[in-house]
């Protein structure tokens, strides 16, 4: 291991690879800020550039830097504009955006930067220590456990995202799952619910849906009520520092979520999105009663939790990719494609056969996290200038980037009409306080959930997998408990009254 580590240090600290990691982080941060251009799109676009480098280590380091940068940049747009370009940063907007609107944008961005740095760095340390052992643990999970784990994730989201309106949150989750069934599935090669429309053959686009339910209603709300924009325009970034008290308060959150996020990231199919939502839900659940009320209104713990968890999960998702050759998420699947194009076969033998690739990627994670912290903290006042742009410029440009994000993702102008239609529906739903995040996460997990459910059903010839796999049963009980929990609490508080 020590020998491999030294080879990795030598490779990662070469001038070319340092340039790759810095360049990747910068490109990722700026593009990740634009709503609609998530890491998947930009990594896919960067693949031809990476392949032309001809060096697998340099290519993977560049793409990994872009990945981290995009997640980091996505948090910035979540905090400042409530327009998460990436599903993994949706939970960041729950408390980041209220903080920005309360004039604490600088503080929110600083907490995000520190949490991301800590999550990514601790994740990289954990990756080095636990990679071999964790990969064997992840191997024990079968389709049934993945299915149950996703149900736990969705239940937690539904139970905690609805702020007392569990039925609405569950309905939105189910609606998202229903939307995910539109189009051709992976297991069943037949179109479903397409109504004969060619444009629905491949289903709804994630980017279009994300833009329609987050960015578009936000822009329409800014138009309807200019007072909302006035909050933003007056939000000067004066105080970037966080107090000792605040640092003390978020330190345990960072510690817990680094570990939890990392382990969730290791599980294929889970990734940064589940990690961030679960991280948020867990921290909200264990917070003292007076702090719990702050969640969703600008809680620093509510911001630090998903930011730490999603970065740690990004690191964790490299474990199955590098050690098993299994992509844990869409992004790592694209990375896997790039490695195969470079004649590298990730798997258990990668660590021994090509240690310079394996270890250089891990070392570059440390470097990348330092670059992101050094790059983002000094740039925070400039990044936050987005808030001072007059609404007559800001709103048309938000709408334009929303449209372009959707167009670039699909290269289809019909997609833009779908975006406008869904955006109007989402705006009306927001009038009635329907939570939108469960819809998106339900949509993202829908395909994977159905695939794992179908595989389990086929393997066990029915729903016997629930009984025959104890871990699945435990996870499903946990999911049921998470749904019932808010009602139990409600009953308890009514009795107390």
């Amino acid at each position, binding site marked *: 291991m020590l020998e491999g580590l030294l080879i990795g240090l030598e490779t990662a600290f070469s001038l070319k690879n340092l340039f790759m990691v810095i360049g990747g982080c910068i490109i990722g941060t700026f593009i990740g800020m634009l709503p609609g251009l998530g890491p998947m799109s930009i990594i896919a*676009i960067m693949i*031809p550039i990476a392949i032309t480098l001809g060096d697998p280590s340099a290519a993977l380091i560049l793409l990994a830097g872009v990945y981290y940068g995009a997640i980091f940049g996505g948090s910035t747009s979540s905090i400042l504009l409530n327009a998460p370009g990436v599903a993994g940063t949706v939970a960041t907007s729950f408390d980041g955006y209220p903080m920005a*609107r309360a004039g604490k944008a600088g503080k929110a961005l600083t907490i995000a930067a520190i949490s991301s740095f800590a999550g990514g760095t601790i994740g990289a340390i954990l990756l080095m220590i636990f990679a071999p052992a964790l990969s064997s643990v992840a191997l024990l999970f079968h389709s049934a456990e993945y299915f149950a784990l996703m149900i736990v994730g969705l239940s937690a989201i539904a139970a905690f995202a609805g*702020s*007392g*309106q*569990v*039925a*609405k949150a569950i*309905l939105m989750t*189910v*609606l998202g*799952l*229903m939307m995910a*069934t539109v189009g051709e599935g992976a297991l*069943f090669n*037949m179109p*479903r*619910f397409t109504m004969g429309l060619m444009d629905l053959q491949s289903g709804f686009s994630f980017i279009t849906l994300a833009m329609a339910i987050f960015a578009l209603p936000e822009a*329409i*709300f800014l*138009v*309807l*009520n200019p*007072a909302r924009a006035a*909050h933003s325009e007056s939000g000067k970034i004066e105080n970037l520092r966080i107090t000792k008290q605040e640092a003390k308060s978020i330190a345990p959150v960072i510690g817990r979520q680094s570990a939890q996020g990392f382990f969730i990231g290791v599980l294929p199919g889970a990734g940064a999105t589940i990690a961030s939502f679960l991280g948020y839900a867990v921290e909200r659940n264990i917070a003292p009663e007076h702090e719990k009320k702050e969640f969703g209104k600008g809680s620093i713990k509510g911001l630090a939790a998903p930011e730490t968890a999603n970065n740690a999960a990004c690191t964790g998702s490299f474990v199955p990719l590098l050690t098993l050759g299994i992509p844990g998420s869409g992004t790592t699947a694209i990375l896997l494609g790039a490695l195969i194009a470079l004649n590298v076969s990730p798997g258990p033998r990668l660590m021994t056969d090509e240690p310079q690739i394996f270890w250089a990627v891990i070392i570059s994670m440390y470097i990348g996290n330092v670059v992101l912290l050094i790059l983002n903290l000094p740039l925070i006042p400039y990044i936050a200038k987005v808030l001072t742009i*007059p*609404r*007559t*410029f800001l*709103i*048309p*440009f938000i*709408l*334009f980037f929303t449209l*372009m994000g959707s*167009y*670039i993702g699909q*290269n289809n*102008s*019909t997609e*833009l*009409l779908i*975006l*406008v239609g869904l*955006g*109007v529906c989402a705006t*009306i*739903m927001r*009038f*009635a*306080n*329907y939570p939108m995040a469960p819809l998106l996460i339900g949509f993202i997990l829908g395909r994977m959930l*159905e695939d794992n*459910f*179908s595989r389990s*059903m*086929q393997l066990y*010839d*029915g729903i016997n997998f629930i009984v025959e796999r104890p871990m699945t049963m435990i996870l499903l009980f946990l999911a049921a408990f998470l749904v019932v929990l808010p009602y139990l609490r409600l009953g308890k508080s009514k009795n107390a009254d």
Partner: protein
Amino acid sequence: MSLDRWIALVILSISLLYSYAAFFTMDQLLPPFMQRNPIWPSTFPKILGVLSILVSAIIVLGFEKNKDSKDGTEIDYRRLFDYNLGQAVFLIIMMAAYALSLRPLGFFISTITFLTVSGYALGERKIFRLFFIIAIASFIIWYLVEQVLGIYLRPLPSIF
């Protein structure tokens, strides 16, 4: 009836249609060899359809009360005409028009028109400054998308 229950009623209607399609239209298309499988393409949609009907019915029947937002900056839909509703509707129409004009008119004409008219509708009166900034921004974005990212964006109308 409050708006959240109306919305739930719409979702309930969609769920009924979805469930009808899942229960009564999908299985007929299934090849005989797939009918022996424990899972059919309609299995998961059937579960979702039933779940959605149940949950939306809970809201429609008012078992879970709506929790009104107390945040003063949120939109009160009961006083929608007190807000800039005209501007919002106009921008939505502009977005739909942009979607329809992007291919035939090309990127530059449709983008510059969309951004300039939207900015003007929102109250920007320094029209030359607005036009100048938008023209430069449009070119930069087109260059990045078309030349750097390699995604085709027709710059001008098809007649050119």
